[in-house]
């Protein structure tokens, strides 16, 4: 070979190449190439490039000729096939052979990469190469380099598949390096460098490989790609129709599309532009036809099942025939054809399914709609659910309004029943999907806060401001509080239930309370009831009483409210200790209990009511006050006689009875103690008791017309008086000497009777004021919250302020737009804040 030095360039190529070309052709045809020939090829290429200035270009051209020639032969083989399957099969065989070689043939020609005469590959090598072919190539490269020193094996006999070649090459490398020849180190370093550069993909950058793939693309693929695709799609189509075909053929076509790409940056380019596109189109066309057909034949409900099944089926099929990058695109397209195109007819079934609680079908529909990307279907379903809950809930309430407006137990139970029904629906049909839970909550809120069945009238502004509007609000919170009271007080209901059942129901109440807008109403009533229970000692279970306070804290009731409740319990406990001490200090007052309350914590005790107490009590009072003064200097007691109560022994000719009465009732009854048989006029009773008019009427009414007892304690003249308002100054009252407790139709000689009943522990006037004070409190809360926000923000526009305001207040009540506006005006008027001069919607805090 060295003799070639000095010869003209042209001659060197001509002399060396024809020999080498034979080896190239052998390689292309996958014939056996001996190790010697393989090495000669490396040497020859190197030699030509070294001694011939234009050697690289010449080799490249020669190579191209051979490759194209080979491809043309292959093409004619493929084209000769008529049948679709035969065509595919032949093509795949030829392509796989060629592709295998595209990993080996470039190796000897690496010299060409350095040559500027050969057009460099378009993309720089990225790491995204297909791992197996790259590593196989690199090891065989290392083996070939190492094999130069010691020749033992038929290395690189590349008639076998690529994996086989790589293992045998690796084995060759191992034997050669263990042979201990002089070039071992260089071989090792060579293989090391090959290994490190293998990450870049040796053959993928190669111009020769690019040449091979581009030539294949140009000469064979370009001509028959339509036929190939078509054939593949026909197979898929047949498979969809239930005929079995060789799936491998389709897979083979896809592989050729993927591997054909010589674009290193986007290996899937050709695949995407041809195969994927065709597959998507074929799929869409197939189902466009089928879906309409199915729907018309079997109806929408059956169609949903069909669509669901097909979507799954196609997902499995896609895993077989498509690259992973196509899965989403295909699903998208399928969803469009199978669902979105039929969206309206599917959705149209939704209301009926919800109405009939067809959870399985709804679940199916939900799964289908959930695939639709923009959520249009799910949204429509949410709307249907919301409408259904609202209308069904309200209809249910309205149909039972007669009972439930009277009976808070029935109301709450009905409400919970509804709630559980809808929650079940959401769980079973929509897997408790958060979006549907929200829809349920919104609808439930509407039911709970609806004012068409019950409402309470709240004045929207304070009375002395002139015009008085009323804004109706749902009575729900009041009824909830009443129900709580029934569970916590000693009532037939609480006696019937076990402790666990009561707990569960209280939890339920809190659940409903979550949906109530005006929680402040609940708090108010709950507090009134609690006050009653604590003062009268009628709690069924004091532990539960304190539990529920903590639960209220947990569900987000305002802390100061909950703290006040806790304070009430503390007061009662302190009072018990005080009582013991009092009794120890003065032996003659065994019958006296005192409850000393912290004025701020309890339900507002309004104004004190004067009453002339029975003489015995008048005696006790100074003792209590003296005792308390000794215990707590600097404090003075204020009596709340409208809350005081006691037990009296009532003796008449018939029997002897213990009566639980309020202090007011006590005062009235004691009027007869000195003149048992007299008839006393209303006017004189007022003088005797010193009670204010409304209180006296209420108290008298409870004695002449106490509900559910056969014989009343007091009788009156005239008898035909229908309400406490109708008492006149000269209406006469007298003791019923025949009074007796009647049980099972028999008059009892002994017995105990509670005459306090449902009498409010508040005074008549404060009861009237109740609703107004709720409004008053709301106004204060709103003002307070506005100032709180503005103090931090300094400047804020109207919309943001309102949003934040509602956020702060929502645990108590929902402030109406009107109220917010009024309070803003009030605050501006009183110079707490002002409007921006330029922007009327911007508020500025004034310190």
């Amino acid at each position, binding site marked *: 070979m060295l003799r070639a030095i000095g010869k003209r360039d042209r001659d060197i190529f001509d002399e060396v190449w024809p020999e080498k070309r034979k080896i190239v052709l052998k390689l292309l045809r996958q014939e056996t190439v001996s190790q010697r020939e393989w090495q000669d090829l490396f040497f020859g290429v190197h030699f030509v490039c070294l001694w011939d200035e234009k050697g690289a270009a010449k080799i490249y051209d020669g190579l191209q000729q051979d490759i194209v020639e080979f491809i043309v032969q292959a093409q004619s083989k493929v084209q000769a096939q008529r049948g679709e399957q035969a065509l595919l099969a032949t093509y795949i065989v030829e392509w796989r052979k060629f592709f295998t070689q595209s990993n080996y043939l470039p190796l000897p020609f690496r010299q060409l990469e350095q040559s500027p005469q050969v057009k460099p590959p378009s993309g720089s090598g990225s790491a995204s190469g297909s791992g197996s072919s790259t590593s196989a190539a690199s090891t065989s490269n290392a083996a070939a380099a190492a094999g130069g020193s010691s020749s033992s094996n038929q290395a690189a006999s590349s008639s076998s598949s690529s994996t086989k070649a790589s293992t045998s090459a690796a084995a060759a490398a191992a034997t050669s390096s263990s042979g201990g020849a002089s070039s071992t180190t260089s071989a090792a370093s060579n293989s090391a460098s090959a290994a490190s550069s293998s990450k870049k993909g040796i053959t993928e950058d190669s111009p020769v490989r690019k040449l091979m793939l581009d030539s294949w693309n140009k000469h064979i693929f370009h001509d028959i790609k339509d036929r190939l695709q078509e054939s593949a799609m026909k197979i898929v189509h047949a498979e969809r129709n239930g005929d079995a075909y060789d799936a491998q053929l389709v897979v083979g076509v896809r592989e050729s599309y993927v591997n054909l790409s010589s674009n290193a940056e986007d290996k899937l380019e050709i695949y995407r532009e041809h195969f994927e596109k065709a597959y998507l189109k074929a799929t869409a066309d197939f189902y466009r036809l089928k879906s309409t057909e199915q729907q018309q034949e079997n109806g929408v409900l059956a169609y949903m099942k069909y669509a669901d099944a097909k979507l799954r089926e196609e997902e499995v099929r896609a895993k077989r025939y498509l690259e992973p990058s196509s899965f989403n695109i295909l699903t998208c397209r399928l969803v469009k054809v199978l669902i979105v195109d039929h969206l309206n007819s599917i959705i149209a079934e939704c209301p009926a399914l919800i109405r009939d609680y067809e959870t399985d079908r709804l679940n199916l529909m939900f799964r289908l709609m959930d695939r639709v990307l923009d959520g249009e279907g799910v949204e429509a379903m949410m709307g249907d659910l919301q409408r259904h809950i609202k209308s069904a809930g309200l209809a249910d309430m309205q149909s039972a309004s007669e009972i439930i407006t009277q009976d808070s137990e029935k109301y709450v139970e009905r409400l919970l029943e509804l709630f559980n029904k809808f929650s079940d629906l959401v769980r079973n049909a929509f897997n408790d999907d958060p979006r549907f839970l929200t829809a349920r909550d919104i609808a439930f809120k509407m039911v709970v806060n609806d004012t068409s069945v019950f409402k309470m009238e709240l004045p929207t502004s304070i009375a002395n401001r002139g015009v008085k509007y009323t804004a109706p609000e749902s009575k729900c919170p009041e009824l909830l509080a009443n129900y709580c009271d029934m569970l916590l007080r000693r009532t037939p209901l609480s006696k019937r239930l076990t402790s666990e059942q009561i707990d569960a129901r209280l939890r339920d109440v809190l659940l409903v309370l979550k949906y109530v807008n005006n929680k402040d109403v609940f708090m108010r009533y709950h507090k009134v009831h609690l006050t009653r229970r604590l*003062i009268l*000692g009628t709690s069924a279970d004091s532990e539960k009483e304190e539990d529920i306070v903590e639960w209220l804290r947990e569900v987000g009731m305002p802390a*100061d409210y909950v*703290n*006040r409740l806790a*304070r009430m319990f503390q007061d009662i406990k302190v009072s018990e200790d005080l009582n013991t001490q009092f009794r120890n200090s003065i032996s003659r007052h065994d*019958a*006296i*209990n*005192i*409850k*000393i*309350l*912290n*004025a*701020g*914590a*309890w339900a507002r*005790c309004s104004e004190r009511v004067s009453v002339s107490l*029975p003489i*015995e*009590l008048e005696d*006790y*009072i100074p003792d*209590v006050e003296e005792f*308390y003064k000794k215990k*707590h*200097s*600097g*404090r*003075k*007691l*204020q*009596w*709340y*006689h409208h*809350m*005081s*109560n*006691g*037990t*009296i*022994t*009532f*003796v*008449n*000719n018939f029997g002897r009875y*213990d009566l639980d009465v309020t*202090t007011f009732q*006590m005062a009235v*009854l*004691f009027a*007869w*103690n000195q003149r*048992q048989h007299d008839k006393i006029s209303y006017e004189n009773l007022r003088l005797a008791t010193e009670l204010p008019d409304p209180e006296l009427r209420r108290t008298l009414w409870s004695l002449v017309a106490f509900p559910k007892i056969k014989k009343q304690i007091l009788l009156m003249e005239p008898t035909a008086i229908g309400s406490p308002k109708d008492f006149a100054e000269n209406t006469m009252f007298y*003791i019923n*000497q025949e009074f007796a407790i009647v049980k099972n139709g028999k008059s009892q000689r002994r017995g105990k009777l509670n005459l306090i009943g449902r009498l409010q522990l508040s005074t008549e006037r404060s009861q009237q004021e109740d609703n107004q004070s709720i409004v008053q409190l709301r106004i204060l809360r709103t003002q307070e919250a506005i100032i709180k926000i503005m103090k931090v923000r300094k400047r804020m526009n109207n919309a943001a302020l309102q949003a934040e305001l509602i956020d702060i207040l929502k645990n108590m009540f929902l402030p109406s737009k009107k109220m917010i506006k009024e309070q803003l005006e009030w605050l501006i008027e009183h110079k707490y804040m002002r409007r921006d001069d330029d922007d009327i919607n911007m508020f500025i805090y004034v310190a």
Partner: protein
Amino acid sequence: MKVTIKSWTGVASWRWIANDENCGICRMSFESTCPECALPGDDCPLVWGVCSHCFHMHCIVKWLNLQPLNKQCPMCRQSWKFNIH
């Protein structure tokens, strides 16, 4: 007929007996709390000095802590001593 009392539960609340309406330090009513507290009553008690002036306990303690040397009543400048009854 005769009525006798078997037992009786009297309900009352208490208020401070102060010789003034408002606390001389925070100017808040004795009926309510000092500015730091939320709930009137035991949690925010009143205290009296031997000079007979009366303040929220929280207020006077804060005041006394601010006086480096002579602990004086802020009203009459007599040296402050708690009046323990």
